[in-house]
């Protein structure tokens, strides 16, 4: 016999089941937010602050979400909070403005430094492992212990980078 002995479907048809999703833990809340090295120097050694600034600037280049259109970026981060950048290949894209950095001591003694972008309504937004977190607000008292809250209005990532060919052909993709 070369036909299947029995066929059971668990997702399709009347026997479908639902799978539950589970979340991931946010960052441990152990860091402070600074807009520049001077502000940082009040709390940490100047040399460490300079190093953290440099690290944050470097990390911003790789961790900032990239958008092909300014409107997409501003929809996520707010009007006036995005800047344009050139790629090595001559193209351009938009990313949120770097407004400062987060710094602190991790358990085990390692220093933690991360870039902070300006989000909608002056929120401070921090990227970490592909997720974006609201870490407080910009304002008169910029420095302070942040409350880490996943940013609901900000997605960390650019989307829409796949699917354009099918759209151009107005077709599905299977064959």
């Amino acid at each position, binding site marked *: 016999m070369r036909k299947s002995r029995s066929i059971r479907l668990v997702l399709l048809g009347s026997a479908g089941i639902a799978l539950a999703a589970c979340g991931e833990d946010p960052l441990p809340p152990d860091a402070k937010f600074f807009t520049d090295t001077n502000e940082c120097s009040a709390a940490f050694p100047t040399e460490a602050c300079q190093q953290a600034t440099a690290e944050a600037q470097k990390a911003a280049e790789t961790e900032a979400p990239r958008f092909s259109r300014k409107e997409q970026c501003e929809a996520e981060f707010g009007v006036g909070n995005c800047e344009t950048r050139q790629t090595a290949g001559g193209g351009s894209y938009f990313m949120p403005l770097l407004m400062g950095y987060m710094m602190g001591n991790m358990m085990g003694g390692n220093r933690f430094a991360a870039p902070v972008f300006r989000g909608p309504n002056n929120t401070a937004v921090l990227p970490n492992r*592909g997720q974006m977190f609201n870490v407080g607000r910009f304002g008169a008292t910029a420095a302070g212990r942040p409350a880490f809250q996943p940013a609901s209005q900000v997605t960390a990532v650019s989307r829409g*980078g796949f699917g354009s060919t099918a759209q151009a052909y107005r077709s599905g993709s*299977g064959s």
Partner: protein
Amino acid sequence: MERLVIEPRPDWRAHVEHDLGFVFHTIDGKPYWDETACYRFEAEQIDEIEEATRELEQLALDLVDRVVQQGPEAYGRLRIPEAAWPAIEGSWRGQEKNLYGRFDLRYDGEAPPKLLEYNADTPTALFEAAVVQWDWLQAVKPEADQFNSIHERLIEAWKNFDILRERVYFSAVKDHAEDNGTIEYLRDTATQAGIDSARIAVEEIGWDGKQFLDLENRRIGVLFKLYPWEWLLGEAFGPHLLKGVVRVVEPPWKMILSNKAALALLWELAPGHPNLLPASLEQPNEIEGTVVRKPIYSREGANLQVLEGGRVVTETPGGYGAEGFVYQQYVELPSFGGNYPVVGSWVVASQPAGMGLREDTTPITRDTSRFVPHFFE
């Protein structure tokens, strides 16, 4: 092999929709699943198709090995961009498993099956072959057999993938019932193999500069894509796919086979093989008789030209052909009362697994073709 006109089950629409979740039986108002007819085969004919499928898959795997060893010249003839070469070689040398493929064969019950093309990357008509025609057989002719253990083999294949600890994301274009039905079926088989899975439209896949993310910004570690490699690589996120941050099924080495230029390279690898048609990239004049010109990258019978002595006698429309063409000897599909069937012969984990027939009322199978069930005795 014969075509039988039969009475459809009176309640089949409600049955396949409700019990099987088969929602694309009718496409754009025209029948796609068609049980007003079926094909009957002899067991020896099934043996012949199965054996041809086994040999063709072995040839295809030999071809991948040869291309990887030859390097730039072979990739160039296949029009595969240089950026993809390391990923192809890495996935082949690393023995990344493949799930499935469909050989489209010309078969009339007498002459040896001939390979028309190999859908190695994004084959569809899978759920119809694996489940819907099996269900039809159980209802209409339960004592007969069918060349179809696709379902069992898919579950077995997933178990042998070394990805059991990772969630697999199944992805196709938004709002396309057939493609989404196909990935939902594949997800069903993966679930039965114990794999954690989720769905995401290709348009919704995110990139954060380091990794691919789902809509809740969770990392995508394994991506099953029902979306051609050559399309992915030409799009904005394409280069990120080659950085090694995501495992993709089908693996990158399938790019060598999903491309119709491979038909010419297969003929070079095994000239005169009884299951191959003469094919050439550069020398169409050396092919005897009528020739069909196919775009290297195309879908569903688009942009074909049938040439007699260099003169175009038939042509199909479409927007493909920018990467060039392959020439293949033209053999007319057999006619069964004005219906022209193509045998879609499946491999799962590179093993022959079953078949599904699609027929059209013209000798060139298009995306308007109908799926017709089969049995053998």
